[in-house]
């Protein structure tokens, strides 16, 4: 049931959260960009702390999962809700030139930043053209 997006395929708009097993999965908003060094993914995961975040790379599949944990006082009943789930999940397929052994992940203020470098031997090189 998980949504999958190739990281290098442009996609417009966000899919609405889907319902599976009675639990609503939240689809985090992401920015993905590429430069010569690699691909950077930034994901909004408000309410997720470091110990409730799980990032897995398996056979070129990247999956980000996180649980929302916010402090709620006793006897609080809901009045209004935009956020109707407690779990974020989103998957992406990676491409072989990415070096999944050296991923750098950072979580701060509910924003995850993942830097996936390109394999050194596959980083683009400029070819000098010699004029005769």
């Amino acid at each position: 049931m998980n949504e999958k997006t190739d990281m290098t395929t442009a996609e417009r708009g966000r899919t609405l959260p889907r319902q599976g097993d009675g639990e609503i999965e939240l689809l985090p908003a992401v920015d993905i960009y590429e430069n010569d060094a690699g691909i950077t993914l930034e994901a909004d995961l408000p309410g997720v702390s470091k110990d409730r975040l799980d990032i897995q790379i398996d056979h070129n599949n990247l999956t980000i999962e996180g649980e929302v944990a916010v402090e709620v006082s006793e006897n609080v009943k809901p009045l209004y809700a935009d956020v109707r789930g407690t779990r974020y999940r989103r998957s992406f397929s990676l491409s072989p030139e990415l070096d999944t052994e050296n991923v750098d992940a950072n979580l701060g203020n509910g924003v995850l930043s993942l830097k996936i470098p390109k394999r050194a031997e596959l980083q683009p090189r400029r070819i000098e053209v010699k004029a005769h």
Partner: protein
Amino acid sequence: MFSYPTSVDSLFNELARLSRDLGGPYGAWGMPASIRAAARGTFPAINIGASDDEVEVYAFAPGIDTSSLDISVQRNVLTVAGERKLERQPEAEYYLNERMSGTFRRVMSLPDDVDPDKVEANYRDGVLHIRMQRSEQGKPRQIRPQ
């Protein structure tokens, strides 16, 4: 894989149930649930809960510099405004660009008996949590027949 606090779990499950009962975000009759309700994807997403003693607002606003936040309560109307600046990499090629960048403002009406003098707010893991006390006369009273 994860275990999470039952109180949070039950609150959000309750919210999910409530939204199903109401027939989605726009209520059973195709009318917005609140006159200040916002379209899906509005930043920040907001959840509001209340007990007899207090009203709690959660604004899901990741990556904010708290000094940019402007939170105000006037009577029973709460306004949260601020700015999230995302730096765009000029040299990079963007494949997805979904995250909100720029200024935001959300206005929400709360129960009539919130006390504007008793408000506290904190920001943690990208969630702004605003707690407001309700005034005494708004609390339910038990009335016993003589």
